[in-house]
């Protein structure tokens, strides 16, 4: 392993300054992703700036509703937080569907959002990967790509974002609060992650050196009528093969409002805006739910090994929405 320096900054300003001063520095939170990638030689920072000592580990209720979740709140603590469970159970459900108890005890809010793809070629320095080494090619495009994207990919990269939490946050219109040398900024989670395009190595819209300090989740009146469905190859401790986060507001039979996002289908958590559009204002039926999913998935371009993700996401969408509408077979 490459030798690196390690620093625990006293405050946000020092953390940002440290990262600014060292081109090959990285923030270290729970380390459950970064340290693995360092061992594999995929990431080789010179300096680790450990953010877990910063005072960013609380969940606050904001005046006027909404929550601010500190960047270093551990995934286990967040999932168990009584306010979260009451106001935004979707977050708890998504978190608890992910990883394992031990990992969630270490993993943090920001670390979870910024975890790297699980594309097996990305993790193996012996294989071609544009994301890891721009210009080397994408081994997954014509290789083993069952777990990878059906939406929004480019010829240069077909990876997916693996986080469950991010899918729920995108559905809830959450906003990331960050600090960088230029000052404080806010980015909707829906705009945090990019599609790969010509630059799969650029994964987020954060400026270099930006420190995520919190994630703000606005109030949502029907937040409790929500569900997170995750299909996976084994019953626990597995990334999603496909997932759906949904919240539904019905006025009688009519869809007053809806939130829908998909996981494990694209380079970013995928907010299903088209499906939402197809649902809003219409009388809810299972058929409508299916049509809405089809509207979203019309843009899907499955890879050789992952065509099944299209019907899978469609079925999960119908199940999620009919369950929330109380019309599911059970």
């Amino acid at each position: 392993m490459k030798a690196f320096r390690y620093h625990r900054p006293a405050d946000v300003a020092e953390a940002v300054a440290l990262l600014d001063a060292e081109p090959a520095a990285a923030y270290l939170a729970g380390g459950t992703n970064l340290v693995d990638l360092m061992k594999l030689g995929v990431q080789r920072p010179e300096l680790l700036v450990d953010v877990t000592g910063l005072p960013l580990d609380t969940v606050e209720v904001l005046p006027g509703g909404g929550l601010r979740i500190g960047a270093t709140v551990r995934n286990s603590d967040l999932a168990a937080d009584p306010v979260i469970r009451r106001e935004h159970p979707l977050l708890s459900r998504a978190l608890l569907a992910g990883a394992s108890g031990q990992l969630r005890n270490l993993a943090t809010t920001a670390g979870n959002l910024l975890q790297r793809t699980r594309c097996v070629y990305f993790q193996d320095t012996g294989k071609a990967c544009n994301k890891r080494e721009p210009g080397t090619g994408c081994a997954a495009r014509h290789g083993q790509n069952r777990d990878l994207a059906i939406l929004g990919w480019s010829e240069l990269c077909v990876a997916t974002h693996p986080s469950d939490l991010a899918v729920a946050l995108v559905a809830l219109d959450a906003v990331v609060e960050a600090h960088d040398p230029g000052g404080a900024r806010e980015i909707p989670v829906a705009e945090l992650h990019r599609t790969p395009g010509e630059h799969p190595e650029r994964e987020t819209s954060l400026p270099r050196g930006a420190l995520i300090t919190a994630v703000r989740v606005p109030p949502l009146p029907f937040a409790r009528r929500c569900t997170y469905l995750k299909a996976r190859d084994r019953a626990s401790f597995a990334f999603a093969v496909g997932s759906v986060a949904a919240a539904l507001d019905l006025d009688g039979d009519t869809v007053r409002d809806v939130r829908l996002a998909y996981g494990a289908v694209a380079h970013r958590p995928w907010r299903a805006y088209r499906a939402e559009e197809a649902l809003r204002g219409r009388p809810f039926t299972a058929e409508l739910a299916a049509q809405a999913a089809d509207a979203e998935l019309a843009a899907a371009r499955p890879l050789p090994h992952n065509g099944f993700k299209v019907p899978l996401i469609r079925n999960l969408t119908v199940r999620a929405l009919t369950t929330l509408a109380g019309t599911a077979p059970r």
Partner: protein
Amino acid sequence: MSAVGREHPRLEGPDKVTGAARYAVEYPVDGVAYGWVVPAAATRGRITRVDVAPALAVPGVLDVLHHGNAPRLTPGVDDTLFLLQEPTVHYRGEYVAVVVADSLEAAREGARLVRIDYDTQPHSTVLSEHHPGLYRPDTVNPGYPTDTTDGDFDAGFAAAEVRLDATYRTPAYHNNPMEPHATTAQWRNGRLLVHDSTQGSTPVQATLAQLFGLPPEAVRVVAEHVGGGFGSKGAAKAPVVLAALAARQVDRPVRLALTRQQLFGPLGYRTPTIQRVRLGADADGRIAAICHDAISQTSGVHEFAEQTAVYTRSMYAGRHRRTTHRLARLDVPTPFWMRAPGECPGAYALESALDELASACGVDPVELRIRNDVTVDPDSGQPFSSRNLVACLREGARRFDWADRDPTPGVRRLGRWLIGTGVAGSSYPARSRAAAAAATAAPDGTFEVRINATDIGTGARTALWQVAADALEVPADRITIRIGDSDLPPAGVAGGSMGTASWSWAVIRACQGLRDRLRHVPGAAVPADGLTVEASTADEVRAQRPLARYAYGAHFVQVRVDADTGEIRVDRMLGMFAVGRVVNPSTARSQLIGGMTMGLSMALHEEGLLDERYGDWVNHDLATYHVSACADIERIEAYWLPEEDPELNPAGVKGIGEIGIVGSAAAVANAVHHATGVRVRDLPIRLDKLLDRLPAG
């Protein structure tokens, strides 16, 4: 009251959970250096240049061993151990260099920086029934005939009322013991001491002696605690040889432990198989013709021929029989033993085919197996020492409430779940091999029993201690048992489900001998330096009557399949076994349910995903190579019938390490078919193979 048959926690349990138990690279050693392997980045070819300068420039790096400078070895029987001797690359990931450094981190960084140029050649890494290089090996592991035939299969099959012809495929499986292979090697005055993570230090001692040109007594191999092996540590493996080479080169003790990623291939794995099974039966499901043609792969380094079709030779009836094995020699690592090599993949195919035959004949699959029971081994013509397959099927069915099962597939729904049940038979050879043991009485009334057995986490140490207590006829707490050191009387590996059968035999003979001696000691006074009796079972084992000796079992499984996603969850697994006498019910149960779970894992989860462009498995960690987790099984039960078989060994045991996995995957696959009506013949059965074929709601 006898100690055998009573539950007893593992003797070393407290040491393990408190961290006091030492594993191979945990012994404190002065001046130890660390080794890190460099895997080949080519799939087939020759090394043309090794540039070690960048690696040597890393502070702390002591040396880089490769074919150009490593100490020379004497070629032996296993060419996979002829390491760092030649520039040839046989497969991607082959260990082609070792970096030795003062610290693990420096060694790892050095390994990244070793520059190796290759002259590469085209490679072939995909097993197929159309592979042009398929050939017939001389024998299959561990020495069975390659092909067998009896009667006229083709005629019998052609004449059968009901014919089944199906091909089943299994992928590469990777053993993945909790403790990756690891060694500490030290040379002292021309003698070699290794602490190795192995399933048997007696054979490792012999192999190292041969490779390094030493008398066996100049090599000592210690394996006191071993974190599993599943067969992959059943012989000397690369790390012990590399550590010994490196320790000699740098003249310091060297530790070499592999990472999880490095386990996928070079240490052995279960070969992929392609298995065609043909069954010809009458309308009542009585098999007249049975044929099992198995294809598997081996490497260009060393031949390993999995005995995939051997299970079919002795399991069920059929006047006309044929089994064949063919191999493709590919540019891949050499496959090796993985829990029940041969029987495990073979039973998946045969027990699936039986299920298909049962459906075709409209006969209950438990009943079909009972109808095809045999009284003499169809392969050898020998009588069985005991055969309780039918009793396992009947008693398992009773406990599982199998009666009244509706055989129609794809019709039971519970909300969004499709429910189904499946059954499979199971059997595994009950063999013993020669071993030696010593028992010593001390004047204070305590005893020490010594045998170079290995406890890979199974509870073998505890079982032998229980056996010794009964043989000495003293309370067990007066006995100390010592195992896992080649300085102890020699014994075979923990493998082939032969461990307890073979070792207990020697322990009993040594203890009985000592008890006899004590009876004749004047005044029953044990001399100050103790009284020792050694025993070997070589003659007795050789003189065993020629009988067919097998353990049997039956698996019953209930699964549910999510009608929207195709996700499969296992509600219940029940295994009913006939395994001779059970020494320690709690550790026996662990072995059985462990095997059953591993079969579930094989059926639903595990799969080495080969990328043929590179020629290696791209999912090489436990996040991407899925092994079943606790949540994958809701209820798991293992039971055994009382079985007294006087033709086995003095302890009357059949071995339980492997039978749990044999047939388990088939029972799961059969249950998935019953739930969904979909027959998936290539493992693992994952949601994408079901999704578009599920019955409409």
